[in-house]
C-alpha cells in the first residue's frame, strides 16, 4: 500500500530507562509493515523528543518506558508536542505500564497504551485507523 509509506512514526525512549528491546522490535516491525520509522535511541528528554518529532515531521510518536517514570514523562512529551504546534500528532505509549495508569495517561493525551504481548500488526492497524483526517497522507 503505497500511501502507507508516508506515515512517519517516531519511536522514542524518554528518561533513563535502557530497556529498549520493545522499542527496537516495534520500530523494526512497523518499518516492515510499511511505515517510515525513526528511532531516537535511549535517554531522551521530553524536549529532545518533541524537537525530533517536529524536525522529522512525524504523524505518530510512540513512547516506551519500563522504569515507572511514564506518569511524569509521557504527559510532558504530549504537552511539549502540543506547544510546538504539533496538535494532531498521534501519541501512543508502551512498556511496563500498570493498568490503573492507563486512564490517567489517556486523559493526558496518550491515545493508546500497548503493553507486553501486543502484536505489532495490532499497533499498525490502530495507527492506520486513528490517524487524524488532516494528517492522512
Amino acid at each position, binding site marked *: 500500500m503505497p500511501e502507507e509509506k508516508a506515515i512517519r512514526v517516531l519511536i522514542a525512549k524518554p528518561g533513563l530507562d*535502557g530497556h529498549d528491546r520493545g522499542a*527496537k*522490535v516495534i520500530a523494526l*516491525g512497523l518499518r516492515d509493515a510499511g511505515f517510515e*520509522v525513526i*528511532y531516537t535511541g535511549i535517554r531522551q528528554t521530553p524536549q529532545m523528543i518533541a524537537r525530533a518529532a517536529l524536525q522529522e515531521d512525524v504523524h505518530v510518536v510512540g513512547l516506551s518506558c519500563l*522504569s515507572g517514570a511514564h506518569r511524569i514523562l509521557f504527559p510532558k512529551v504530549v504537552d511539549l508536542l502540543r506547544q510546538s504546534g504539533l496538535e494532531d500528532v498521534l501519541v501512543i505509549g508502551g512498556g511496563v505500564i500498570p493498568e490503573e495508569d492507563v486512564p490517567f495517561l489517556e486523559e493526558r493525551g496518550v491515545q493508546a497504551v500497548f503493553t*507486553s*504481548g501486543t502484536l505489532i500488526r495490532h499497533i499498525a492497524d490502530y495507527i492506520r485507523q486513528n490517524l487524524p483526517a488532516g494528517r492522512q497522507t
Partner: protein
Amino acid sequence: MRHQKGVVTVFDPERLAEIEEGKKGWEETALRENLRRLGLSESPCQFYTPLDVRDRDYLQKEGFPGQYPYTRGSYAVPVYATPFAEVLEGGVVAPRAGQYAGYGTVEDTRDLWRAEKRRGANIAFDLPTQCGYDSDHPLAEGEVGRAGIAVDTLQDFETLYEAFDGLTTLDGMVSNFTINAPCNIILAMYFALAEKKGVSLAKLHGTPQNDILKEFVARGTYIFPPEPAMRMIRDTITYCSEYAPEMNVISICGYHMREAGASEVQAAGFTFAHAIAYIQLGVDAGLDIDQFMRRFTFLDFGGGMDFWREIARARANRRVWARIMKERFGAKNPRSWIMSGGDTIFVGPSAYTLQRPLNNLVRGVIGGVMGYLGAGFTFGGFPWDEVYGLGHSYEARQLSLDAGRILRYEAKLKQVVDPLGGSYFVEALTDEVEEEIWDVIRKVEDVGGAVEAVKSGYAQQEIARSAYKFHREIETGERVIVGVNKFTGEEELEVVPPRLVPHPYDPKKLESAAERQLARLARVKKERDQDRVDSALKAVHEAAKKEDENLIPCFMDAVKAYATVGEICDVLRDVFGEYEAPSIL
C-alpha cells in the same frame, strides 16, 4: 557414520554396527507403520540412539561433577543439594546479602531493612545514580527513587547503612551493588564508609556488578566510551587485589542480554567474550590469574522456554568456560575453571506474559525443573507478578517459594546430579550448542574482540536481530505463547489472582521520594566545604588524564568531601567524553 580411530568411546564398535542395522530396520517397519496409521509423512519427534554420540570420549567430554570439563556440574555436590539452598527455600530473608531492593530514598530503605532486621545490603540504585546524574539533573526527572534508591553523596550511604547499626558491622556483612558505569565511585563510598567506621578494607565482603560491556549491549546504563570504562574496571581489579582482597570485583552477566532478546547461545557467547576482555585487563596489569579469578563472579545467563536447549546450554557453558580458562588463559587452579555463581538456571521474566499472568507460575516452575536437569542452581521461578514491574506481592512470592519446595521435597529432584548425563539426545545437543557458543565467541574475535564488538554496534545489532526474529515468530504463530498468540478465544478465562497482603513499603512514600531526596542533596551541598570539593574534583580530573593511574583513591577523597556522583562523573565526562550508541536500526 564410521567409528573414529583413536577416540575412546563407551560403545563397542561391533555393537554400534548392530545398532545402526537395528535402527534402519526400525525406520522401515515400526516407524513407517506408525506414520502410515497417523497419516504423517514424517515423524514430529526426533529420536536419538548411541549412534548420535558414538565418537565421544566420556572422560574428555563429560567426566565427573566438580571436575574438568565440568559438563556434569560445577561441583561434586550441586548447589541445589547444599544446605545453603535449603536455607534459601526455607524463606529466610537475608542469609547473606538478602533480596535485591531499594525503595524511594535511603531513609525509606534504611527503615524497611531495619524493620526486617536485615544483615546484608543488596542495593538497587535508581537510574540517575546508575547513569551518573544527580537527583537534581534534568534527565533525572521522574526517575529519582524509582527502580532503586538515589545515592548522590556519601551521606546517603551513611544513612542507608544505619539500617545495620547494632545488628552487624561492615566486616560481618555482605554488600552487593547493582551498579556499573559509576561502580568505582560507589565502591569508593563503601571504602570511605569503612574507613570512617574503622573497619579495614581487607575485611570487606561484597560484589559490585561492574559489567559495563553488557550495559553497552543490552541494559543501557553506560556513561563513558568503552576504553575508559574498561580502564575503570582494571582499576577495580588492581585496587581490590591490593587493598580489599575479599571483595569480588565483578559480576559478569548474560541475563540482561538474554532479556534484551539474545538467543541462549548469543547470551552465552557474548558473556564469555566479555569475560575474556575483563580477564585480559587483569592479565595485562601483571596480576596472577589464579589469584584475581577468585574475585570474578558471574550473575547468570538468563533463560527462556526452550527447555532442552536451555539445559544443553547450561551444560555446554560449563565446558566452554573451563576450556577458556584452562586452555586459553592457562589458569592452573581448578577454582578458576568454574563460573562462580554463573550456573543458575531459570526461565527469565521476558518469557512471562501479562495475559493470564498466573501462567507465569508454571513457566517459573519449568525453569526450576531445568535447573535440576541442567545440574545448576535453581529455584521455584520468579514470582508470577514480576510482569507488573518491580515489587512482587507477598502472595506471588509465597507461590514461587512453595514451587521450589515442591520440586525439592515432593518431587525429590535433588536426588541425582546431572540426571540427563549420558542421554543420547542431551549429550548430542550439548555438543551442538557448545559449537554454536564457540561460534559466537569466534565471531566476536573476528570483529576485534568484545570492546570492538560494542563500538561497532555488532553485538547490539545481533541481539536486536534476534529479538525481532523472536517477535516475528510470535506474530506469525510459529512460536506459540499461550494466551498471547494462541488460545485467546472468548471462551478462555483471564485468571488474575488477588494480591491483597500489603507491602511494607507504602507507595505514597514513593511519591514524595524525589522531593525528599532533592532536599537532602541541597542540604549536603550547602553544608560541605566547597573548597575541599573543588580541589578533590580537580585531582580526579588530573588523574583521569593519566591512563595508568588508578582513580579509586581520588574518588575516595572526593566522596569524603561529599562531592556528588554527578559531579565526579561530570569531571570524567570532561576527560573521557560520553558514549554515543551507534545507530543500529
